[in-house]
């Protein structure tokens, strides 16, 4: 016995069954190298790779019969003996195997002589076949049948594929439609959140329903306040417009699909309207062949209905109905939102009115307080001036004609005496009082300086009051916007303010556009800001007070940005908000009205601009003013002003 496995003959056994293979392996392992393949295709591959000395072929194979496998192996490896191991007990099984190209046939069950039989075939034994031609022909017929069968199967597969393809196409079309429906529903959903105006939303919805689904008409009805009518609120195309113009409405009753859908809260569908004699025929929509009415339900209460109409029969499939109903639900939500918004708006308006009244009351109170305060010194000053004038007149009346240069002056003095007497002013008595006074007191009373000062007090108080008036009503005055060079305007303003030379440093970027503003009001703005900055610097006794004005185009070129910066003490965080409030002032005695920044902000806001402050303690304060650039305004828009 040869024990070197490399020298043992190789036998390839092709069998599907694990049991068969393990049995053959055990029976042949001593004298052969057993190669195994679990199916004929693997077997064919393995055979061509290993070129075994003998091939054993199980008769019960997948994919092909053992005969076929034998034929193909024979063709591939003509010199290799092929033996069929078969459990096939039908007559002719052996012959068929031999006809297919096998040299031998070992019937199952295999036993102790198996090794012996294999060795014999390996040594060249070949079973004889009588009537070989007959079996061959039979085998060829079998093969032909098989090919035919396979052809049929292939044809069937092709047919089936065609069917599947068309199914897929249908599915695809359906998916596409569903996709579109979803997309449309999503669009409606999006609109629901983005369009707050209900009428616009409804109009968009009917347009989408018709254009995306190819329905020829869609309309949306909402229930009237008395809940008796379904009133058309949106309608597609010309028919829709005509119906809207005619204030089209339907009674909420069983007679119309709209009415029924509202009453039953169920979709009403007529796939062929001709078959519904009780259907209400709409004269505006004579071509309707199928129709659907979907209720709009909010919190389980009907608020209206959507009608969708087609000029084709059976225009609605399940899918359409489902997604249109989903869309109707979206619209219902939108209607609810719009109603809530309306409620909110009226509540808001109420609140705003209250707030406005409060603000007006406060502002009025403040204004009266300030005007009263500012007016306080006027009566005192006027009283003193009156006294002073009496004393001076008393003195003037004492001047003798002879001391005057000419007759007209003498006449004037005479007039003083006469008019004083006429108005009940006893100059003699005043003079007597004066004579009785101590000299220093008398001197104080006839001081021209004091007289002038009192006139100044009265004048300045009156001016402050006028400033308050200007601050209060200035921003409300009619605006007349024109293209304005802020550069020239601010330079002029600074010059007129008479600040020390070099106190204001201005830089302007080349691309700064003209502003489109009311020149007078905006000049006030910068006048105020620069004046404020200068006062802050003066009050803080800054050694080298400086104001930097800078102008440039603001980002997107629709605005001009001007900043006014000072090197003063800055504005503390806790009052940065308060500075914009009317009548808030830190200026104490320096005569500020406390309306400056409030009026400034109002003016800037009314121009559609913005003003803000940036300030860190000790780092100065910078006011930024953004105003519309000139090119924002087209001639058209000027009409509204």
């Amino acid at each position, binding site marked *: 016995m040869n024990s070197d496995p490399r020298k043992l003959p190789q036998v390839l056994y092709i069998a599907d069954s694990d049991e068969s293979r393990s049995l053959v392996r055990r029976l042949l392992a001593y004298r052969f190298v057993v190669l195994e393949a679990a199916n004929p295709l693997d077997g064919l591959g393995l055979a061509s790779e290993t070129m075994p000395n003998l091939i054993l072929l199980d008769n019960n194979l997948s994919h092909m019969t053992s005969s076929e496998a034998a034929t193909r192996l024979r063709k591939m490896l003509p010199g290799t003996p092929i033996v069929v191991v078969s459990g096939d007990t039908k007559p002719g099984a052996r012959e068929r195997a031999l006809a297919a190209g096998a040299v031998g046939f070992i019937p199952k069950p295999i036993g102790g002589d198996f090794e012996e039989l294999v060795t014999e075939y390996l040594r060249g034994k070949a079973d004889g076949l009588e009537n070989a031609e007959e079996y061959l022909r039979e085998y060829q017929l079998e093969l032909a049948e098989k090919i035919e069968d396979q052809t049929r199967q292939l044809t069937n597969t092709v047919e089936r594929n065609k069917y599947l393809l068309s199914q897929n196409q249908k599915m695809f079309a359906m998916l596409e439609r569903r996709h579109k429906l979803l997309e449309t529903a999503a669009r409606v959903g999006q609109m629901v959140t983005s369009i707050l105006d209900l009428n616009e939303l409804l109009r968009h919805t009917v347009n989408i329903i018709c254009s995306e689904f190819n329905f020829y008409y869609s309309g949306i009805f909402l229930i009237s306040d008395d809940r008796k009518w379904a009133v058309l609120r949106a309608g597609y195309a010309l028919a829709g417009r005509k119906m809207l113009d005619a204030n089209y409405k339907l009674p909420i009753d069983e007679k119309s699909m709209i009415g029924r859908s509202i009453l039953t809260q169920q979709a009403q569908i007529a796939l062929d309207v001709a078959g519904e004699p009780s259907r209400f025929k709409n004269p505006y929509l004579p071509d309707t062949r199928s129709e659907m009415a979907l209720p709009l339900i909010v919190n389980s209460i009907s608020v209206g209905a959507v009608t969708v109409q087609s000029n084709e029969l059976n225009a609605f499939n399940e899918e359409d109905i489902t997604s249109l109903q989903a869309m109707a639900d979206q619209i219902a939500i939108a209607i609810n939102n719009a109603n809530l918004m309306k409620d909110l708006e009226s509540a808001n308006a109420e609140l705003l009115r209250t707030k406005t009244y409060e603000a007006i009351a406060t502002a009025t*109170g403040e204004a*009266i*307080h300030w005007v*009263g*305060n*500012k007016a*306080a*010194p006027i*009566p*005192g*000053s006027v*009283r*003193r001036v009156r*006294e002073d004038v009496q004393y001076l007149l008393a003195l003037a009346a004492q001047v003798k004609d002879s001391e005057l240069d000419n007759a007209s002056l003498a006449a004037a003095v005479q007039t003083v005496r006469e008019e004083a007497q006429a108005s009940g002013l006893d100059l003699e008595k005043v003079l007597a009082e004066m004579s009785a006074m101590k000299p220093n*007191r008398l001197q*104080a*009373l006839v001081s021209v300086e*004091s007289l002038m*000062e*009192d006139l100044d*007090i009265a004048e*300045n*108080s009156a001016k*402050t009051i006028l400033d308050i008036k200007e601050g209060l009503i200035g921003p409300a005055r009619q605006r007349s916007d024109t293209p304005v060079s802020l550069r020239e305007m601010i330079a002029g303003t600074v010059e007129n303010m008479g600040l020390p030379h070099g106190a204001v440093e201005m830089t302007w970027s080349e691309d700064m556009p003209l502003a489109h503003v009311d020149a007078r009001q905006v000049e006030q703005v910068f006048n105020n800001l620069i004046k404020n900055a200068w006062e802050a610097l003066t009050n803080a006794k800054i050694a080298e007070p400086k104001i930097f004005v800078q102008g440039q185009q603001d980002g997107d070129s629709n605005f001009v940005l001007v900043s006014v910066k000072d090197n003063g003490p800055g504005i503390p965080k806790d009052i940065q908000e308060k500075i914009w409030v009317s009548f808030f*002032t*830190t200026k*104490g*005695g*320096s*005569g500020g009205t406390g309306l400056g920044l409030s009026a400034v902000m109002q003016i800037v806001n009314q121009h559609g601009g913005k003003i803000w402050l940036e300030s860190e303690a000790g780092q100065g304060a910078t006011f930024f003013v953004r105003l519309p650039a000139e090119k924002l305004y087209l001639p058209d828009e000027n009409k509204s002003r």
Partner: protein
Amino acid sequence: MTTVLLVDDEKLIQRSLEKTLLRAGYDVLTAPDCKVGSEVFSQNAKTVDIAVLDLNMPGFDGVPKNDAGLDLLADLKQKRANLPVVILTAYDEVNKAKDAVSKGATAFFVKGREQGLVELIQKILGS
């Protein structure tokens, strides 16, 4: 000679009142806020006979404050408990002024008719 300490941050009001008081024959010391007012009083503690204080003006820290006059009132009262003090007020703040009186002010005066202040001071100091 009677000396009046007048503290008010409104320049025009202060000057006008000062002139009225001067004409009425008083010596007048002025200050624009609590801090300076307190200092001026301390420097002239022996001569000041009566203080006239505005209600709303910069406080001891120089920052404008409602009712800062009450702070100065307390300060002056601490320095001299029997100092007569008149609180100046706008017409619409009379309640606050009355409050000031309950806190130790001798009287309040509503800004406007300045001669009235002279009469009030005469009345306070005469009694």
